């Protein structure tokens, strides 16, 4: 699968530090993600995976380091700037707009790519209405893409768990990302749902979107990712193709504890 990545660097961070008071949540983290690959991020609970996600999407401002995406400097930029340059994400604990319909959730995702402002909202000029129709159509097709079109009119809070996960992905895709960051998308899914999700992620990648993935399901990660990085105590302890990482003694130690000798 690594052959699908053409080696062009999409996202690059180096020397990233993030501290919360006395806690050094990320320490000198560096990684680079190539265009077109599925890049996995694993590590024990509390290793800093989600913190890194928050840094990469602008929710947390890193203390030091470098962060570029497509060559654009995104160090300490706000979330709406990060998403505008092409990074979108989902959340470990689903964060939909619960009292909006599934369709409206995806329509909010189009926000970053549309122009209409308050004057358009007041005067409803033809241009604004055309844009609104385009948003509507695009949102419908994204619901279709992730396979929940028939639930478009339901409130997000009433969707099944698996469908909420899919809706989050559709909403993220609505921002036209080049990099889609998925934080434990398979958490709480049964094997059938996990398998469907895997197919969806492969479809998304084949349609040209690079994927950064946090997941605990090791079997899923090994079968899906082109490369995997391992975090432990806020440091990157390994990186490579799945086979290398699986056999790396430091990774085994981080997950299982040190061997007796």
């Amino acid at each position, binding site marked *: 699968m690594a052959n699908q990545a053409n080696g062009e660097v999409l996202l690059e961070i180096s020397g990233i530090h993030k501290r919360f008071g006395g806690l050094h949540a990320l320490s000198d983290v560096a990684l680079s993600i190539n265009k077109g690959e599925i890049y996995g991020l694993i590590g024990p609970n509390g290793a800093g995976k989600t913190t890194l996600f928050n840094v990469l999407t602008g929710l947390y401002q890193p203390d030091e380091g470098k962060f570029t995406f497509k060559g654009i400097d995104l160090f300490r930029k706000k979330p709406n700037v990060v998403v505008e340059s092409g990074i979108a994400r989902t959340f470990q604990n689903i*964060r939909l*707009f619960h*009292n*909006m319909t599934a369709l409206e959730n995806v*329509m*909010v995702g189009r926000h970053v790519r*549309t122009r209409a402002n*308050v004057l358009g909202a007041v005067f*409803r000029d033809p241009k604004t209405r055309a844009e609104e129709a385009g948003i509507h159509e695009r949102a419908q097709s994204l619901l279709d893409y992730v396979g929940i079109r028939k639930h478009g009119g339901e409130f997000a809070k009433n969707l099944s768990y698996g469908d909420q996960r899919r809706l989050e992905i559709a*909403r993220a895709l609505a921002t036209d990302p080049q990099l889609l960051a998925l934080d434990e998308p398979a958490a709480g899914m049964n094997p059938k749902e996990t398998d469907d999700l895997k197919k969806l992620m492969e479809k998304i990648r084949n349609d040209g979107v690079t994927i950064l993935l946090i997941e605990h399901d090791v079997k899923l990660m090994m079968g899906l990712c082109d490369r995997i990085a391992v975090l432990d105590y806020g440091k990157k302890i390994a990186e490579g193709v799945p086979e290398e990482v699986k056999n790396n003694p430091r990774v085994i130690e981080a997950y299982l504890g040190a061997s007796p000798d």
Partner: protein
Amino acid sequence: MDIFIQQLINGLVVGSIYALIALGYTMVYGILQLINFAHGEIVMMGAMITISAVSILSGSGVNLPGPLLVVAGLLVSIPITMLLGFTIERVAYRPLRKAPRLAPLITAIGISIVLQQVAVLIWKNNPRSFPDLLPHASHDFMGAVITDLQILIVVLALVVMGGLLIMVEKTKLGRAMRAVSMNQSVASLMGVNINYVISMTFVIGSALGAVAGVMVGANYGLAYPTMGFMIGLKAFTAAVLGGIGNLAGAVAGGLLLGIIESVGAGYLGPITGGVLGSHYQDIFAFMVLILVLVFRPSGLLGERVAERA
């Protein structure tokens, strides 16, 4: 004359004004969980600026029919109140967005006092009569009297409120507002500019407030620099009654409060044998506030109260 129907009509008129003002409170609360106590002063500014603009216009020999003169006055006062609302948020609330919730409440009260005193400096602390420019022919309605002005106020309020609801439900800005009220950080990840949405919320709420202020002035025939306090408190009560943060609730709460107050005031004299007259009508609003806070703090249409305790 049927006193019940009459008080119902009066209540509907006052209630639709309360509803317009309550929308301003509830929109801001929905997004920031903040009670913008300066909103009553925005209403006052809307009324006072309109009166001044109208008197300057007619003094300088502009010869327009009465209603158009009022519209011209509104065209002056609405942009100014919008700018005021925008500025208040920037100066008094935005720097405190991450502060404990008591802090912006205090700056809200501070801004409210500042605006009131500025108004006293400009207009002196005297009531100004609202110029007699709008039609007020009386009509018979089921044994009661309804005037053109009253019909105008109710219809205009309904149109403005309907427009707001459509804006919130159907447009991109409205969707952004709802998204921000549900989850700010996720909305920002969708490219929603949070600060812009918050500013627009204040701007739109202030425009509604200015319209309501002119309605208050026209309805009672006068306006004064300290009027914002009581009208703001009543509209706040209406917003709480309907469920603060809920737009439909603000409308329902406003209309209901207006009717309770008017009908109550109409019967207060006869019931108490003349001890309390109708000028005690304010007690109804605050009785309602206390009862709602005791028995249904989430309001008629509100939800989620415990989660932010």
